[in-house]
């Protein structure tokens, strides 16, 4: 198969395939489950297959001119491939985990339909080389996540889903205004044309501000962050998908795509964005330390870690950006694992209130271990992968001479250690407060253990992800090897 077809398949096999899932589901549950996994795996496998080609310096572009300057462009470069692998890897594991989790609930056809559509449109967003299509896929993810958050259909849950939808769509619409203004400045929606037309001149600050609205609301950053903990009412694999691995990374990805790869920012943003990120990180870190709902805690933790990613990307220097990208991968793996562990705990104890839990480590040893591994990675403790990303991000800030920001993020890292250890000790240690608690099902345990072990291997064999990230950054910053 030619590379263009591979690229096309990465996006459209899951997007179109998702519509077939409910039909198959009416005949066979098993076939539907396997097909769902297969559709996501196609994205993963084809992305991995494209990696060596892209890493050698080529890039792949599909370009069909449609009306006006709205061309249908798919463009695969290092950044896109890296992001696609990171998202579809965690996505595939989450789908696998869903086999065990969602089998207890109704409306399974809708579930797999929405999850695969979500992941497919994520791929579309990643590879889009045109702002209008980027926006289009962006909104499809919003619609899918709206349906998934309200999956359990209770009135309160649907309201939460509405909240998430309204905030992210509000942000996206403001971002769209930014896109249009960008069009008036550069005469194109195509990212490559925009880049050529701008010629390294900083883009106007008002455009950056408008686009940031969309990015911050999607990536749940202060002050648009509160929809994320509220979205914890969704099924756990969905929260893993939304909060940890994929949805919240859309914002940071678009940040990297637009403000690093395509345009140059005014220097003031190298300070403004870290300050917003820092405030967001501290507030959410504090909230994570105070909340008593397991999934809300982990959601707040995601918000605080997103702060680190923004910091890394906003530093504008090589180390910081590499740290931010590595953070996307490591955090996706580890945080996905944490949410899936929370799902096991929630399903077996029938509560999300950590004050009612205790001593679960004795009855759920594998969940405990996976939770510990993933927590250590999020805390940035070696030999887990999160260590390197945290180090690189903070070094990025230091290299900009921003010591105050570096120390703020040090405080944030301390909060991370505190709130995760609090959760671990309350939930898994101490006296067992419940009786007849079982471990999760085999596929669920396999999924969490796999993510935990990946977090560990990602640290020990840091060479491989680091190599990819280094060449990604070099390509983004236009440094020729």
């Amino acid at each position: 198969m030619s590379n263009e077809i591979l690229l096309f398949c990465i996006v459209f096999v899951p997007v179109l395939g998702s519509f077939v899932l409910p039909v198959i589901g009416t005949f066979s549950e098993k076939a539907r489950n396997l097909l769902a996994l297969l559709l996501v795996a196609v994205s993963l496998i084809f992305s991995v297959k494209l990696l060596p080609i892209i890493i050698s310096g080529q890039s792949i572009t599909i370009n069909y001119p449609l009306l006006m300057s709205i061309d249908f462009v798919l463009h695969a470069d290092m950044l896109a491939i890296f992001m696609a692998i990171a998202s579809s890897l965690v996505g595939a594991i989450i789908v696998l985990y869903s086999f065990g989790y969602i089998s207890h609930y109704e409306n399974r056809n809708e579930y797999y339909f929405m999850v695969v559509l979500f992941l497919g449109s994520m791929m579309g967003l990643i590879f889009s080389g045109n702002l209008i299509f980027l926006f289009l896929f962006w909104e499809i993810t919003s619609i899918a996540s709206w349906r998934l958050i309200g999956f359990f259909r209770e009135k309160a849950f649907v309201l939460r889903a509405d909240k998430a939808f309204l905030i992210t769509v509000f942000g996206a619409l403001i971002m769209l205004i930014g896109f249009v203004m960008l069009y008036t400045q550069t005469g194109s929606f195509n990212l490559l044309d925009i880049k050529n037309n701008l010629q390294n001149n900083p883009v106007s600050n008002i455009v950056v501000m408008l686009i940031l609205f969309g990015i911050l609301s999607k990536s749940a950053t202060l002050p648009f962050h509160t929809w994320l903990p509220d979205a914890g009412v969704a099924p756990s694999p969905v929260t893993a998908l939304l909060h940890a691995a994929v949805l919240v990374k859309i914002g940071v990805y678009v940040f990297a795509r637009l403000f690093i790869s395509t345009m140059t920012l005014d220097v003031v943003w190298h300070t403004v964005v870290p300050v917003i990120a820092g405030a967001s990180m501290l507030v959410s870190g504090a909230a994570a330390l105070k909340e008593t709902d397991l999934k809300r805690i982990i959601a707040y933790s995601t918000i605080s870690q997103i702060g680190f990613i923004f910091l890394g990307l906003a530093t504008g220097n090589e180390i910081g950006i590499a740290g931010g990208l590595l953070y996307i991968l490591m955090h996706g793996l580890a945080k996905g694992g944490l949410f899936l562990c929370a799902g096991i705990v929630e399903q077996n104890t029938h509560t999300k209130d950590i004050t009612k839990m205790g001593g679960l480590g004795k009855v759920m040893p594998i969940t405990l271990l996976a939770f510990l591994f993933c927590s250590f990675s999020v805390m940035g403790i070696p030999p887990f992968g999160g260590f390197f990303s945290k180090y690189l991000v903070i070094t990025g800030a230091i290299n900009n001479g921003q010591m105050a920001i570096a120390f703020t993020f040090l405080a944030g890292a301390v909060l991370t250690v505190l709130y995760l250890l609090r959760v671990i000790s309350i939930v898994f240690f101490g006296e067992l407060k419940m009786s007849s608690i079982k471990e999760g099902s085999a596929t669920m345990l396999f999924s969490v253990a796999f993510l935990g072990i990946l977090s560990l291997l990602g640290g020990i064999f840091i060479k491989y992800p680091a190599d990819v990230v280094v060449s990604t950054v070099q390509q983004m910053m236009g440094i020729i090897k």
Partner: protein
Amino acid sequence: MINILILLPFIAGLFILAMPKKARGITGFVVLLVTLINLFITIKLFRTTAMVSFPWAGFGIDFALRLDHFSSFIILAVAGFGFLISLYAVTSMKGTEIYNQFFAYLLVSLTLANGAVLADNLVVMLFFWEGLLVTLFAMITIGNKQAYKTAVKAVVLVGISDLCMMVGIGLTAHLAGTLSMSGIKLGLQSSGGVAYILLMIGAISKAGSMPFHSWIPDAAVDANLPFMAILPAALEKLLGIYFLARISLEMFSLTPDSWISTLLMIVGGITILFAVMMALIQKDYKRLLSYHAISQVGYMVLGIGTAVPAGIIGGLFHMINHAMYKSTLFLTGGSVERQAGTTDLRKLGGLGAKMPITFACFIVAAAAISGVPPFNGFFSKELVYDGALERGWIFYAMAVAGSFFTAASFLKLGHSAYLGKINDGHKNVKEAPITMLIPMIIIASLCILFGLYNSLPLHNLIQPILGEHRLEGHHFSGFPENMMLVIVTVVVLIAAYLNHIFGVKKSGSGLGAVDHIHHAPVLSGIYDKAEKRFFDPYNIGLGIVNIFVVILFKIDRIIDWIVDNFTVKVTYVFTNTIRKIHTGDAALYLSWSLGGMILIVLYIIVR
């Protein structure tokens, strides 16, 4: 060869962890074999130099290892303790549920310690160094039921300082332009000073200095004893002081005229005094020892902080001496715990006759820690005194006062555990098994050897670390040159003895030997508060964090309220207002349209 030191214990550790319960018989054999191989390799590598490097994480983070005199000495010591304490633990931990887990974590800790010492690249160093948090957490958690709380405390305290170190390493790399320790030469001005302090926080916290110490006494009670003997007593001290010396002597040049040197000495002095005061009043064998494990770090930090040759040599010599006598002391505590079933001093007594070898080892180690000539602790302390006096009498006074209380508390400990009346339940107590005695005897003999022939360690191990040019022609072996210091030391020791006699007479028991200090007018109030953890930096820190957290969480809730309620209200008010305009009156709508048209026309004209 170097790679084996890192790979072998790690792989063996994983192997033991994965081993099925039935195969437990060979665990001990595997552990001893691996630690012995580790020891042999380090002996073979001793005094050789090597440099290994291969690409790793990019951005200057190469997997670079360096073997020089200093690192070869430290890994040798690590391997020695690793083997001897494993030998001890194979017996002392036998039959426990967590047997395999314990040894697996121990072996992984060895890997991490070897890696941290050998690393030349700062990030690689931090990778191994901070990785010890994981084994620390694991090894404490497998203790008693409440141990997880202590494990959390330990990871928080050490983790915070490791994160400081992470920032410090980032800053150092930024300033020096390299991550390679052997290539860094920085001053202590402005940013350099900040970088040094951040790295120093990591180093002294690993060693267990104040204010990052308070998990150690808790761990003494909650964790397994061999853990205390290997990590807080030996390995962590070696690592912490090793890195402190590396940054002070090589990467930054710490000079006596810099304020940072004074800061280090203050930290050292305070650590010596406050921790020993706490040790004095403890009524538990292990808890008492653990406070001394903190207090003794003070001497090392003080010694290196003096930044004069005598002090630095003394601090480093004290590091290795302390690791020896403190692990011996913990091991005697373990023997007592195993044979008598308790370490509560109120229940112990008269064990000296029942456990003569343990008692003998205790005496040697206790004399060494108290600085009694001719044991090793005496010589290293004299060197620290020498350095401290050169920098200021107040630091010397703190160090000497620390010695007085050290001696007093060990007289109390020895008296109440080994002498006096035997507890009725302990009439049939026997000496510990031979495999537990051998490690104690070996390390205790080394305490004597390093004292009597102090030129052996000083010439071969310690002095080359500084290098000839920095020694300025001094030689520090043999009997201390400054007789004044020796006389003061002897007087202090005699005073401690008299104090003991006085206390015993007054209270009527060995355990109560220091009660007159404990219940002295001002002190007793402070002691009460300290016992209630009033001064625990962990609790104080969490209290401060909590204030911020409450405020920040309030901000979060306010934002949530704005999003959930305020915007909704605003929208309702807005739409209601708009709705009121829509009365259905055609004339009104027409006037609206007309008004709008006029505005548009005006706009076009004016533009």
